[in-house]
């Protein structure tokens, strides 16, 4: 039996949504983990809780939250 395929949802003007739990290594090499069953990763760079999306893309009217 093969492992379930990793599915990624790129949200227009929004985050990248992926099935969890996940471990994310950021640009500085710091490792972040989440036990959620689904996580949203910031794509706009405006989140105060990167690498996770905190919804701020909407306030900024930015593209790629």
């Amino acid at each position, binding site marked *: 039996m093969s492992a379930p395929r990793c599915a990624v*949802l790129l*949200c*227009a*003007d*929004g*985050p990248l*949504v992926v099935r969890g739990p996940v471990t994310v290594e950021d640009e500085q090499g710091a490792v972040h983990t989440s*036990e*959620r*069953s*689904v*996580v*949203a990763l910031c794509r706009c760079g405006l989140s*105060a*809780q990167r690498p*996770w*999306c*905190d*919804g*701020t893309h*909407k*306030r900024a009217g930015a593209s790629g939250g």
Partner: protein
Amino acid sequence: MRCPTARGRLSSAVREALLADRPLDADPDHRLDPGPTADDEGDRQLALWMLFELHHRGFEDVPDDAEWRPDLLALRRDLERDLEARWRELAAPLLAEHAAQATGDLATDFFALCEADTGPSVAEFVRRRATTEQLHAVLRQRSVYHGKEQDAAMWAVPRLDDEPTAHLLAVAYDEYGNGSPDQVHSRLWAGGLRAAGVDDAYGAHVGEAVPEVLEQNNLMAMLGLQRRLLPASLGHLAAFEVTSALPSQQWVRGLERLRAPEELTGYFREHVLADSVHEQVAVRQLLGSYLGGAPDRRDDVFWGGAVCLLAEGRAGAAVLRAVGADEHEVAA
């Protein structure tokens, strides 16, 4: 919880019928004479709230089989008809305005609808100037909802096809703690209240809930219970998720300003991240897959979204008035 104290003629008739386990003795014209005052509105909304509660957890002083008493179901049906008609009307201007700008893309249009300004923000009030006493009053009003969280939306599960069911439950799994009872959101909420010194018992503050808060909760129960309104229930849930993360950020800042206990602040901190995920799943995957199979229900989905936004706007304004936020804030 015990059956709440009545606020007027109708809620008194319902309470008596429930406690004495005898047929309802309500004026058959109850619907036609709702009365113009806020007290009458509170009476009517509380009566309906009590009828809906029979389908949730019921009351410890009322027999469980009251849930299916024909006289009570008949009254509920009458009150629901009025409620639905009123909210079809209330939502019409917002939906008309929205339709004029719609692009046809579901996610774009649904997120745009949720940008609508429907009233003053309680979260902003908490962030900027609520006192601890006002905060506690807001928490007591909010507890009518947070004791249940997504319960009413869960009635959708047996009614949906496989794909939307999976997406709905992906959101719900988080709300209900990812399998850990300690992480169930209603339990996190109760822990936050307790830490803040506010009674966390289920239904503890229904007695002081303003009519608009009861109505907001009644709407969720109505959309959830009636299979006919399934698409509106999904739209309501999605709009709720879309309008949660940013206000939760404001709550966190307000609670930090007030040095509220971490259990309470943590509840809102959790919602910033959780609902940033939920809104994407709810709009793109849940609504997307549901409408993929039922494209003719799009208007109903958007109506449910509009109901969520407008009911929150009205409840928010009423809560701010009730806690004595200054007029400027309420009018903003």
